[in-house]
């Protein structure tokens, strides 16, 4: 068993970066996630593992530093919160286009605009569909505990390098700021420069004489090359969709109703399920872990098993609910419930919504 600690989600994320053998973190402070870089700076990871930590002049610079280091085959991370993530969209689109691996975290706060620093889940669309320009996707993992803030860093790097894609850890102010017990995984070694040069032939590490040079780019001036590259990307996303769906269910076996939720909303919804079960309501929780790929087929299955209604619970005006609808394809009722703009729904409110919108409605 790994080391047990009481940590904030943000701190666990930072510690996990060191332990996952990250080579670098580039970031810019923003509430509610500044503890990530603060923790890293205090830990002197350069002395622990040789990991580099640099405070960039902006989020735009940070994501482009990530691009550079990732393009050279290194394990790189960044993190920010909503407005800062918006600024990173061009860079992320470039990374997706150039097929560069990285792990980045969005500790979401309420928007739009400067908004509030309170927790929110209103960046779901940005994370799973929109965001930057062009036809690209990124793997999105939604931790619901401090433990997962740590675990998903490791998982994230695995997936990022497996598929050469940015992986987003979509967290929020609750998960970032809360402390929980966390079992830290053991320190993993950082790859040596020679290992990188050997393992990642796509990485720019200097052209050895007598070999071909390596290029990192997202440019394809000729449309047919660009289309070919896009088809390649789409094929990759298909593979990801087939292999990397992750979710968790609670009390779904006999459920007539399902709450679909992720992250801190899922924590709250789990409490709702507990209360509801005590009241005799047959409700289960379908907790998304991967938001992209979305577990459409698994929700479909539940639908076919006779679930009568799905309540999508999220701290937004209704974003994930669209994916639930697309999955369920009209075969059961789908409704949305959420507080938003920084307000967190209570378990009791969720229950009431379930009763009114799904059971009663």
């Amino acid at each position: 068993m790994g080391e047990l600690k009481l940590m904030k989600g943000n701190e666990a994320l930072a510690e996990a970066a060191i332990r996952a053998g990250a080579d670098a973190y580039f970031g810019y402070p923003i509430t509610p996630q500044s503890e990530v870089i603060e923790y890293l700076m205090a830990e002197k990871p350069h002395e622990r593992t040789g990991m580099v930590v640099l405070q960039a002049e902006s989020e735009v610079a940070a994501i482009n530093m990530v691009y550079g280091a990732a393009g050279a085959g290194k394990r790189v991370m960044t993190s920010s919160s909503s407005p800062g993530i918006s600024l990173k969209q061009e860079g992320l689109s470039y990374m997706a286009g150039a097929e560069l691996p990285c792990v980045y975290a969005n500790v979401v706060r309420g928007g739009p605009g400067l908004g509030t620093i309170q927790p929110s889940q209103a960046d779901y669309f940005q994370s799973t569909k929109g965001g930057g320009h062009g036809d690209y996707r990124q793997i999105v993992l939604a931790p619901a505990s401090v433990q997962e803030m740590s675990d998903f860093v490791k998982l994230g790097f695995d997936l990022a390098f497996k598929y050469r894609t940015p992986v987003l850890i979509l967290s929020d102010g609750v998960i970032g700021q809360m402390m929980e017990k966390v079992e830290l995984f053991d320190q993993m070694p950082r790859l040596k420069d020679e290992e990188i040069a050997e393992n990642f032939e796509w990485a720019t590490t200097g052209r050895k004489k007598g070999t071909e040079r390596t290029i990192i780019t997202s440019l394809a001036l000729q449309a047919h090359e660009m289309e070919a590259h896009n088809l390649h990307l789409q094929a990759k996303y298909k593979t990801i969709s087939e292999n990397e769906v992750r979710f968790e269910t609670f009390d779904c076996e006999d459920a007539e109703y399902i709450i679909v939720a992720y992250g801190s909303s899922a924590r709250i919804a789990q409490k709702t399920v507990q209360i509801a079960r005590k009241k005799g309501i047959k409700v289960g929780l379908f907790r998304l872990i991967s938001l992209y790929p979305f577990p459409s087929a698994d929700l479909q299955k539940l639908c076919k098993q006779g679930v009568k209604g799905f309540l999508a619970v999220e701290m937004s005006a209704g974003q994930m609910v669209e994916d639930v609808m697309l999955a369920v394809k009209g075969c059961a009722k789908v409704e949305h419930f959420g507080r938003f703009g920084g307000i967190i729904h209570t378990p009791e409110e969720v229950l009431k919504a379930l009763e009114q919108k799904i059971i009663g409605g």
Partner: protein
Amino acid sequence: MTEELIIAGFGGQGVLSMGKILAYSGIMQEQEVSWMPSYGPEMRGGTANVIVIVSDERISSPILTIFDTAIILNQQSMDKFEKSVRPGGVLIYDPNGITRHPERTDINIYQVEGARLASEMGNAKIFNMVILGAYLKVKPIVKLDNVIKGLMKSLPVRYHKLIPLNEDAITMGMKNVVDKNIVN
């Protein structure tokens, strides 16, 4: 066993670290814990509060609106959280700076003069440990041993020499907590 607790007061009173020590104590006896601070604009010179849950089971929501226990350390928090204690629950408060005392009759109300006791002990910083002591007297959810272990875990090593002082403060709090339902 699940204890759902809020500790609320001013920034600077040690609210957050008290919650942290309690949470660590829970870990020491292999329980599940969560610690969720309020954060944000109210932090700067304003109120600070933290929700701590200690449980034998996996904790679902770390954010609650109804609590088993509320520890209240200033008037603003009294106004905000007195009503959030579940019927039959516990409210512990320090009367220092309180202008309107709690009025509910369906909960168990305790009082501890943390500020006075801490300054009598010559160290205003151990205020929060006095309060913790009072709480543990009323709700002995974690063993004192484990609290000490929790302290060791949450204090940097260079402060470990202060642990005996903290222990004294806890004991002081335990001794001086007053059951208001009985007293009044």
